């Protein structure tokens, strides 16, 4: 958080994202929005209200309500970006990204390369992730699929300050950037499912950017490095509080960007602590935690003093019943147990 903030206010992530978009739309006439239910009068302002009020300022020409056609949402964003526009597209739930895998993976990520570097695809795709008792097709965290794609950038902000700054950077980036936001983190009240957290953060009134590719140390600690995003980040911070009582100091890192990964911050920390636990809500096998674990084994082996641990959702689709859902999701107790194994 920057020091000497003149007019800091506390904003929710939803409010911060809305500010980021509005500021970039005022700044650059090439920025426009594309998605379902985003500008309809009397509508929702997008599935989670992030766009509420924007159509009044920017009009329907720059806030385009599409048919329920995710392939064309992503494909239109690609085409418009090729001609120099800066589309901010979104799908209502990240699960729907699978509808437009071709447009994202074969077109957005590869057209520049296939052209021999002659074109750019400066587009943003926003996608809400996370299990919220909506079941298997509205609760996935599919970041890892896209972390595997050269040509894409993948960011996953978890608080209002970083969400605003990194979305602005994503809009200005000349590459396709996927922005994954967690559904339980949009609101202000601190929903019970998110642990009753106060999810507002200080956001300066003056303009700032948060760079893509730079991780943030949320809590310094000497004994073990904990890397986590979204709700898992807050659960990791809660686990760190509990472990501190027993004298185990966790260094909690929010990677913020999953592709490209900030190896300097993350593996620099691992070299200091000698221990690594990665936590994510995506399921375990092949998740982005595996990539961090593999790189730690490769780049930090001589520094490691304990096993690298991964805490993730169990390898099952998200169930609907709350009791089942919680059984699948990584809990604070799971994180505490993993840290104890890492430091044992």
């Amino acid at each position, binding site marked *: 958080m920057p020091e000497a903030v003149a007019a800091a206010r506390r904003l929710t992530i939803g409010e911060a994202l809305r500010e980021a978009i509005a500021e970039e739309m005022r700044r650059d006439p090439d920025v426009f929005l594309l998605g379902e239910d985003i500008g309809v009068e009397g509508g929702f302002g997008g599935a989670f209200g992030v766009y509420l009020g924007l159509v009044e300022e920017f009009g329907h020409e720059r806030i385009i309500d599409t048919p329920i056609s995710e392939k064309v949402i992503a494909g239109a964003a690609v085409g418009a970006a090729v001609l120099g526009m800066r589309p901010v597209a979104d799908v209502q739930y990240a699960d729907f990204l699978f509808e437009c895998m071709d447009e994202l993976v074969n077109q957005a990520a590869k057209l520049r390369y296939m052209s021999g*570097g002659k074109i750019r695809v400066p587009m943003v795709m926003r996608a809400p992730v996370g299990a919220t008792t909506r079941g298997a097709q509205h609760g996935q965290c599919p970041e890892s699929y896209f972390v595997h794609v050269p040509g894409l950038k993948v960011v996953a902000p978890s608080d209002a300050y970083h969400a605003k700054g990194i979305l602005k950077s994503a809009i200005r980036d000349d590459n396709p950037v996927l922005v994954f936001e967690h559904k339980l983190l949009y609101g202000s009240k601190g929903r019970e499912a998110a642990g009753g957290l106060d999810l507002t953060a200080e956001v300066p009134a003056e303009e700032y950017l948060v760079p893509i590719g730079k991780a943030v140390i949320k809590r310094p600690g000497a004994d073990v490095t904990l890397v986590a995003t979204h709700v898992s980040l807050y659960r990791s911070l809660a686990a760190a509080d509990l472990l501190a009582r027993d004298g185990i100091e966790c260094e909690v890192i929010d990677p913020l960007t999953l592709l490209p990964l900030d190896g300097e911050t993350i593996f620099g920390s691992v070299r200091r602590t000698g221990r690594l636990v990665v936590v994510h809500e995506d399921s375990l096998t092949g998740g982005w935690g595996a990539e961090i674990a593999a790189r730690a084994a490769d780049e930090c082996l001589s520094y490691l003093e304990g096993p690298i641990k991964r805490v993730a959702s169990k390898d099952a689709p998200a169930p609907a019943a709350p009791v089942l859902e919680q059984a699948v999701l990584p809990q604070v107790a799971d994180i505490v147990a993993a840290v104890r194994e890492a430091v044992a």
Partner: protein
Amino acid sequence: MHADGTKLAEQADGGLRESLYRRMLLIRRFEERVYRLFLEGEIPGTLHQYQGQEAVAVGVCDALTRDDWITSTHRPHGHALAKGVSARSAMAELYGKRTGCCGGKGGSMHLGDPDVGMLPAIAIVGGGNTVVTGLGLAMKLRRRDQVAVCFFGEGATNEGAFHEGINFAAVERLPVVLVCENNLYGASTRYSRVALVPDVAERAKAYGVPARIVDGMDVLAVRAAARDAVAAARAGAGPTLLECKTYRFTGHSRSDARGYRTREEEARWAARDPLLVLGASLNEATRGHLEAEVKGELDDAVEFARDSPFPEPGDATASVYA
């Protein structure tokens, strides 16, 4: 079918007919040359060839300016040459050379060049049908007097992307022209086996998009239809679908022996070869002169490609990101 081709040919002035013929001839001879070089092991990869369909690429691209854009398919050589990629640049790309239009990173299936208004060809069937709407959207938002054309085969109309793309283009009245090259077969599968609606043009009606069936072997017929569609798009009237009935004279790709279609059917279409249809209105001396010109251009292109340097292996990871 569109108005009689011969009548149109009579109406077109000699200079135009010569120019169109030369462009079609360049594509035909380019493809024949490339096939031989491929068999001789000079050109790597695979090939999807365009012989037989030249009238579509040339007729449509003649209705466009350099500022207009096209998207293409896994069979893009003809589109690239028709839109203005030079024979040198295209040939060098097929050779995998640094001087190719994509620096060797695209190859046969991704020929293209933004400098002439052509995206790297999209080799996923239906892939261009959504991307073209974004090109059109950018043109509309910037109020540019441009048009975006999507080339696709009849096979693409069974992809979801076709339906999402045409509907969105219609709803947003985008300056887009959808050019279906109906060559009857998706790889080896006959269209009538996989669609109960015999004409692709019929499908456009479901989206409120005007459509025309065009003789895709008659470059003047294609050109006339394309000029109307492009004019409508420029005027803000939204998309048109042109279904060009055509035929690929070769197999789907280099390894295809065409066992799924009859030699009689092939002979019927060969009699309507677009070079014969237009060439009938040119005299033999003119045709001979154009042959010689095209041969010279292709000799030069091959020499250029052969003499060009390969990319450095270190270039392989460049241009992944901007």
